């Protein structure tokens, strides 16, 4: 598996070529290079996957080492990759879905002046994510982690003449760096306590740590994961991130970036297993985020914003899963989510593209007849996101909820179920508002070109059939595939009883989801209800303003830091410089006080010399 680094190098190379030679290559050649790089990387990843598949499960882990990165005192590190079933799944998702998004972007970004730069960034994004998921130690995980943050910054702020895009990009970067710091601190503790940062080294020595240390490490890692995966209250950057071009949103929400947090916890499961408090915290916040974001998504009017909050909500499910040690279920949901969320975003992109940039759902409606391919693929994505029975989201979400119940997390399960109801409600609200009813805008919608619809179809197939990898009560290929990873250290696998299907619970959620679809149809499908009942207005306002989290965060952090900075600046000018200038003024004052003695009269100077000389002579002769 030494050759696996090629998967990383391809997009890196593509990004470099597009950045340096993009202008001279032209649009077409650049898109061939970058999209080709992704295609090749996908093929390579498939080959890695197939080679892995041909081996017995126990031997499916590889750790090729390439060079010594640094050796400075107690910090010693090699650059190496970890290729095992878990990273193989991510390799496939990142390169596969990434490739489809690349392909789609050719059409979507067709008219953009900075086409080449965009593709360079896209490839950089994929490269960064690949580094993140294949690193074999926490430090290079951090390298990828930071690089992902950078690429997202570049892409969110891609339309840099829009002030909103610029500020969204900065928000994303600063919050992500705050998360980076969490991981950095965790690494410090690891270096100090264990003297190692490689996964294998850390995981096999966890028992030598005190429980407080492990909890601390786990919380710090979670800080990083929560920032990247938009967990409450660090989720504020993600909905703003839709300021970037729509394929970027797809990439961020589906294939890269936000899944990194889930990956980190799924990867570092021995730490979280040893840190039960942190794990409970992860699950609790996850469940809360799922419900919280779903309620916000209910009332937003911007099509991308709804989908963005839907992502936050779905990420809450994944964190709920990894928090209760249902790692395989979490990864399963992540994979399914990658399909249907990419599908939803690209479909939304297709709609926006068709309406020449319109994103407000109040100005859509009835698009079914204009965009047939988009309509049908979008329907599949919607159903999957809602968890409608026999679509992929149904299998993965129910796996998580079932295991939550089976492991005794009744309250988390309950929150999850309520959130599932809202999920179905908001996504079908979106669907009906966009595609049903009558067209409320004034444009001329048209179906997107094949380069955009083909990815939609491919993703739709994934969203439709992906769930059958793990059919409750029948088979679970996902668990099997990941078993070697999670049986390596204690705490990775749930007891068999927990993974057994709980038919009652499945039936309950299914009924709730179908009820939500029915409610949505009645409220939004047939005709749009503009006016709200009086009693709901305050609630609507709170939800529409996203519980004012942005404002609170702004007031608490941005305001404080700004004030501190202004204070420091003032201190610099007044106190530090003031003291210095005061000393200077003192010296100057002395000089000015003494200046009259410098009368300029030669004879006075001579007299002074004489007087001084007389005193010297007097001293020498008399004393």
């Amino acid at each position, binding site marked *: 598996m030494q050759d696996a680094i090629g998967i990383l190098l391809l997009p890196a190379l593509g990004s470099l070529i597009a950045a340096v030679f993009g202008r001279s290559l032209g649009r077409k050649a650049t898109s061939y290079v970058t999209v080709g790089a992704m295609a090749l990387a996908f093929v390579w990843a498939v080959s890695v996957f197939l080679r892995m598949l041909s081996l017995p499960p126990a031997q499916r882990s590889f750790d090729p080492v390439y060079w010594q990165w640094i050796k400075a005192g107690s910090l010693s590190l090699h650059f190496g990759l970890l290729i095992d079933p878990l990273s193989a799944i991510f390799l496939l998702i990142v390169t596969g879905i990434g490739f489809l998004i690349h392909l789609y972007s050719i059409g979507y970004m067709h008219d953009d002046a900075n086409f080449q730069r965009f593709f360079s960034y896209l490839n950089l994004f994929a490269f960064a994510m690949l580094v993140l998921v294949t690193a074999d130690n926490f430090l290079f995980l951090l390298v990828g982690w930071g690089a992902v943050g950078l690429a997202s910054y570049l892409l969110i702020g891609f339309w840099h003449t829009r002030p909103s895009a610029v500020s969204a990009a900065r928000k994303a970067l600063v919050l992500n760096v705050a998360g980076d710091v969490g991981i950095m601190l965790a690494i410090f503790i690891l270096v100090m306590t264990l003297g190692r940062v490689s996964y294998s080294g850390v995981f096999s020595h966890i028992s030598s740590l005190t429980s407080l240390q492990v909890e601390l490490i786990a919380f710090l890692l979670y800080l990083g994961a929560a920032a990247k995966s938009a967990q409450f209250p660090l989720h504020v950057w993600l909905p703003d991130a839709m300021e970037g071009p729509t394929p970027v949103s797809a990439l961020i929400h589906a294939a890269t970036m936000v899944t990194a947090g889930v990956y980190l916890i799924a990867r570092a499961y021995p730490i979280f297993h040893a840190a039960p408090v942190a794990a409970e915290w992860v699950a609790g916040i996850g469940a809360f985020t799922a419900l919280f974001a779903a309620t916000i998504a209910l009332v937003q009017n911007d099509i991308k914003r709804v989908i963005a909050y839907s992502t936050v909500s779905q990420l809450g499910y994944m964190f709920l899963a990894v928090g209760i040690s249902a790692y395989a279920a979490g990864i399963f949901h992540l994979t399914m989510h990658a399909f249907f969320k990419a599908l939803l975003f690209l479909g939304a992109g297709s709609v926006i593209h068709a309406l020449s940039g319109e994103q407000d759902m109040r100005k859509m409606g009835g698009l079914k007849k204009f965009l047939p391919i988009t309509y049908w693929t979008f329907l599949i994505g919607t159903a999957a996101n809602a968890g409608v029975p026999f679509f992929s989201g149904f299998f993965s979400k129910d796996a998580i909820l079932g295991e939550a119940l089976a492991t005794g997390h009744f309250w988390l399960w309950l929150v999850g179920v309520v959130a599932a109801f809202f999920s179905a409600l908001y996504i079908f609200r979106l669907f009906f508002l966009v595609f049903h009813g009558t067209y409320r805008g004034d444009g001329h919608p048209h179906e997107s070109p094949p380069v955009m619809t083909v990815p939609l179809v491919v993703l739709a197939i994934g969203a439709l059939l992906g769930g059958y990898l793990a059919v409750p009560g029948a088979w679970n290929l996902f668990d099997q595939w990941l078993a070697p990873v999670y049986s390596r250290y204690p705490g990775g696998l749930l007891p068999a009883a927990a993974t057994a299907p709980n038919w009652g619970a499945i039936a309950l959620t299914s009924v709730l989801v179908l009820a939500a679809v029915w409610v949505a149809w009645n409220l939004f499908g047939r005709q749009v209800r503009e006016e709200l009942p009086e009693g709901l207005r305050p609630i609507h306002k709170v939800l529409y303003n996203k519980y004012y989290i942005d404002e609170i965060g702004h007031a608490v952090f941005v305001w404080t830091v700004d004030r501190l900075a202004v204070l420091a600046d003032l201190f610099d000018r007044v106190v530090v410089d003031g003291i210095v200038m005061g000393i200077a003024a003192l010296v100057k004052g002395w000089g000015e006080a003494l*200046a009259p*003695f*410098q009368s*300029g009269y030669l*004879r006075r100077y*001579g007299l002074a010399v*004489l007087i001084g000389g007389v005193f010297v002579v007097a001293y020498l002769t008399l004393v």
Partner: protein
Amino acid sequence: MVPISYYLILSALLFSIGTVGVLIRRNPLQMFMSVELMWNAVNLSFVAFARQYLNMAGHVFVFLVITVAAAEVAIGLAIIVLVFRNREHADVDELNVMKG
């Protein structure tokens, strides 16, 4: 024989007169002459001491002093001539550009 101290006191007297001359005259030429007085007062001391200790070093010193004094006068007078030409007066008190 006159004791050496007489020479020395005479030297001191001439030196003091020279010093006072430098300090009270405003004409630079007269200041210069007073400086010459001081030089020569010192020369007298040198010669007197040389006589006292029968040592030629004092004579050599005086010789050097005369040489340097000659050089100094040449330069000094050149400067004075320049100043006279530029400012057309002869008052050192007017030359106070360097006042603090």
